[in-house]
């Protein structure tokens, strides 16, 4: 596959055009803003955490296809997971975008979409776009 098609896969474009969990929560327990001053991406993330589990999540903001799709997919993946699991997923995601982990033949279905970002490591200037949502998530969880 040519690199550009590998980066902008259909799934990614779908999430960009129709992001999931876009909007606001009634009563978020945690929230954070993330900025990528280099390109002006901005994300606002709201979480509802109960008993160390993320029961609901929404995001809003503006950004490029990669940052927006990454936020959309992240919100899908983390919903229902414990904070501990989410931290591990963040580490896995950073490894994926840096090309430090192999793409498994058959990733478990709920993690499958994380691996569409494996193409990003060919585009070093765009890694920060992909990780913006995850860094914002970690910042939100630092609040207690």
């Amino acid at each position: 596959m040519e690199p550009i098609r590998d980066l902008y896969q259909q799934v990614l474009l779908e999430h960009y055009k129709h992001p999931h969990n876009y909007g606001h929560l009634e009563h978020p327990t945690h929230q954070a803003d993330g900025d990528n001053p280099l390109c002006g991406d901005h994300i606002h993330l709201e979480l509802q955490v109960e008993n160390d589990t993320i029961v609901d999540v929404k995001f809003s903001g503006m950004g490029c296809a990669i940052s927006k799709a990454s936020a959309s997919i992240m919100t899908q993946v983390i919903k229902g997971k414990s904070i501990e699991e989410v931290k591990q997923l963040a580490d896995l995601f950073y490894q994926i975008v840096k090309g430090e982990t192999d793409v498994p033949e058959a990733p478990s279905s709920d993690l499958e979409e994380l691996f569409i970002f494996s193409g990003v490591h060919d585009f070093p200037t765009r890694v920060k776009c992909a990780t913006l949502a995850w860094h914002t998530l970690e910042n939100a969880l630092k609040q207690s």
Partner: protein
Amino acid sequence: MNPEVAATVDLDVHSIRADFPILNVQPYGQHLAYFDNAATTQKPQVVIDTLTQFYEQFNSNVHRGVHYLSQHATEAYEKSREIVRRFLNARSTAEIVFVRGTTEALNLLATTFGKLLQPGDEILISMMEHHSNLVPWQILAKEKDLKLKYIPITETGELDLDTFERLLSDRTRVVSVVHASNSLGTVNPIEKIIELAHQNDIPVIIDGAQAVAHISVDVQSLDADFYVFSGHKIYGPTGIGVLYGKERWLDRLPPYQAGGDMIKRVTLEETTYNVLPYKFEAGTPNIAGAVGLGVALEYVQNIGLSKIARYEMQLLEYATRAVEEIPGLRIIGTADQKIGVLSFVMDYTHPHDIGTILDQAGVAIRAGHHCTQPVMDFFGVEGTARASFAVYNTPEEIDQMVKALWQVYQLFGQ
């Protein structure tokens, strides 16, 4: 070459391209179409050779050196100042101060002007300024309780001159405006702006960073009080720029930085400052850079600025017509008078995604707010994609860009 463009310009772009070794780089195995010239231009071989030659044969500190090398370095440095003087048609080399670049020149002016101002005084700039002609004034205004006023812009990206006239008041102490906008391409009517300001005895600073490589500047006929630019945007090295100031203004302004070279006599009690322009050149300057800048300006003059401008205008028109056919693409900055800057958005794609896709096709453009966030806010966009043209660009390269833009449309727009 596209016959339409070739037929009307007497400019041998292929021999010019041969002067720029970097144009042989092939990103991802493709022809490099370098359209990021408003950020920085590439350097011709003569400029690169000058830098090497300086360090190989002349390197030494300037002024006061009694030895052979220092004498040669000083001569080369001062010869370059004379080339700049002629380039701007300044009255005297005392009016040509070497600085790091436009940003440093504007910070120098905001800081030193600031010392002459009183609370309640007004500074007038425009909404289309680069952050480097906005933030220094904003900081100054906060520090000294001054009023910072903005000349508004219109939907086409031009300055609203009627409002400008009304904004000039008896408290306005300085007007600072950009000659040509880096994000819109607009060429501002600085003659008119200077004339109106001078009717009120207000000095005018012109930020010429984007203009000098495309428009002939005569500071005396313009009657500009200050004109500043960077060397690297006119085929010269980075880290060298020029602050032109009328002698009577440079005399009035206090020094910016203090140290070596800017002094005449220092005792433990007090210091007498050096004459112009050295009063503003504290410390060892970028000597090689200044010499390289002189060579770059001569390179441009040998081709002819008006010829370069005519050629770039044809590239701009050709590119504008081609991109207008792409659905959902909107050009930001549609002034009558423009330099070769084509700024645009595609309503289904973020500028950075455009930038990445073009990059993969060998096309270098810039994407983002271009250090003009108020302009982006005015047009209601997060940023734009910007192609900016230089003398070595060709219509074929524009075709290369347009083809990649259609690919953006296929990926995102359908």
